[in-house]
């Protein structure tokens, strides 16, 4: 025991003490990060016989979308849009090949690739029998063969607008229902503000320009949700 208290050991000890104190403090601090508790409203919808535990009407998706649409969403998509004629040949090689070059996705696995594209083409067919209406677009050089579809509503499918925006993350929402309602609000806004005001029947055989997004479903087919679509030269 006596030997332990030799002078050089004590010097060493004093020097080491500060370091140990710091280390201890750092270790203790590192394990107490702040956390947030997210409250969920447990409300039963009187008109439903099944209670939805995750329903929270405090979140107004339409308001959320209105607040960011003109300021953030449209400028972002217009700035990031890639000519669709670059994307299509890559998609033919494979979704991952196209995705790694031009795509966006939330994480490395389990989420599909989304793309922001722009282009100009001629409408060769208008499909309105299904409520998920679409138009077929032929891209130059024109051969009357459809190269892609644009969704024209009133039902718009998918979540591609939401999923291409890098400033929106699932982490920021209470749960998957809220996150889904956000995607629906984007689609609804696009139909009400843009698509419902265009007469696509009268645009058949005419050229249009578009900017929009789509989710690659692995089939190689493109189903674009437009944030902007307009007749070339403005003539309708």
């Amino acid at each position, binding site marked *: 025991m006596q030997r332990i208290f030799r002078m050089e050991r004590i010097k060493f000890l004093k020097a080491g003490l500060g370091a140990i104190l710091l280390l201890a403090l750092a270790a203790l601090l590192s394990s107490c990060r702040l956390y947030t508790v997210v409250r969920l409203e447990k409300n039963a919808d009187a008109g439903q016989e*099944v209670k939805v535990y995750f329903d929270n009407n405090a979140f107004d998706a339409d308001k959320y979308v209105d607040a960011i649409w003109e300021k953030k969403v449209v400028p972002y998509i217009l700035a990031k849009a890639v000519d669709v004629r670059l994307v299509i040949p890559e998609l033919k090689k494979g979704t991952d090949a196209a995705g790694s070059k031009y795509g966006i996705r939330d994480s490395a696995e389990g989420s599909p690739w989304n793309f922001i594209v722009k282009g100009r083409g001629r409408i060769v067919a208008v499909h309105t029998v299904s409520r998920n209406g679409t138009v077929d677009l032929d891209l130059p050089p024109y051969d009357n063969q459809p190269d892609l579809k644009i969704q024209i509503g009133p039902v718009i499918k998918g979540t591609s607008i939401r999923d291409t925006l890098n400033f929106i993350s699932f982490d920021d929402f209470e749960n*998957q229902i809220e996150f889904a309602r956000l995607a*629906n609000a984007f689609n609804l806004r696009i139909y009400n503000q843009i698509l419902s005001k265009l007469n696509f029947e009268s645009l058949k055989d005419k050229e249009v320009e578009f900017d929009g997004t789509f989710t690659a479903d692995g089939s190689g087919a493109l189903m674009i949700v437009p944030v902007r679509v307009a007749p070339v030269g403005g003539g309708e």
Partner: protein
Amino acid sequence: MGGIELKKGLLWLVALFLLIGSLSVFAAKRNSNLIVIITPSHDNPFFKAEAVGAEARAKELGYQTLTLIHNDDANKQNELFDTAIARRAAAIICDNAGADATIAPVRRAKAAGIPAFLVDREINATGLAVAQIVSNNYQGAKLGGEEFVRLMGEKGKYVELVGKESDTNAGIRSKGYHEVIDQYPDLKLVARQSANWSQTEAFSKMESIIQANKDIKGVICGNDTMAMGAMAALKAAGMGHVIVVGFDGSNDVRDSILRGEIKATVLQPAYRIAQLAVEQADRYLRTGSTGEREKQLKDCILINKANANKLETFMLKN
């Protein structure tokens, strides 16, 4: 003389104490090689696939495993978390027993220096678990709903069988279905009942619904076991042509689809999600980061005649 000795001795002791204290914070993460896997009952093949997937991956990565079952009982789950903490687990992988009830045990684990990785279902808090790899039930239900609408030709009378009302996923899936179907005014809902996820209950409920509605064109179900029950009742009534859609991606429904009976289901990639959680746990233990956001939403996949033959135990083979 003696006083100085004593002071030095004390200093030594304090230093030693701090050293041990600081090390013990790391020790919880470092000193065991055990991954504890906690899921609901394996009676449901979905949860069994989850546990098996996590176990297999953990062993491949060189961990020991301990697989435990909470039976959707929050108190039981509390005990299991305490077991994991007492065993100084390297990490906990958990399909949890309640979005609110799970906050406390995850917080306890975190305080003990044990990282938790949640799979399949989310909890109502962020910043406690290292990762929440969530099955996107809502997106899955929308996929199932869209396929149902397509098969129905956007019109006709249909029935909905809902899962157990107390279960979050029953509500989420029903909401997802209606989100899609309600946009088609020519689709008429003639009966909507809960069959509590049960095959036998779905069979008897369907039998009585058929009595009053001979002209139904489709049945959409909150899970696969109810779809199997509904299909059996329809076949027994000579109505095997009715369009039935399920949810989960079980092997039973896969076989039914291949026989041309049930038309579609939605796969939640349970096996893969569980493996992914283990991979992220491993990465976190080795590097201090998973490289991913905490909340990760994993999409479901539509299963129909085109890809049913590639489905095996909640995994789609390429």
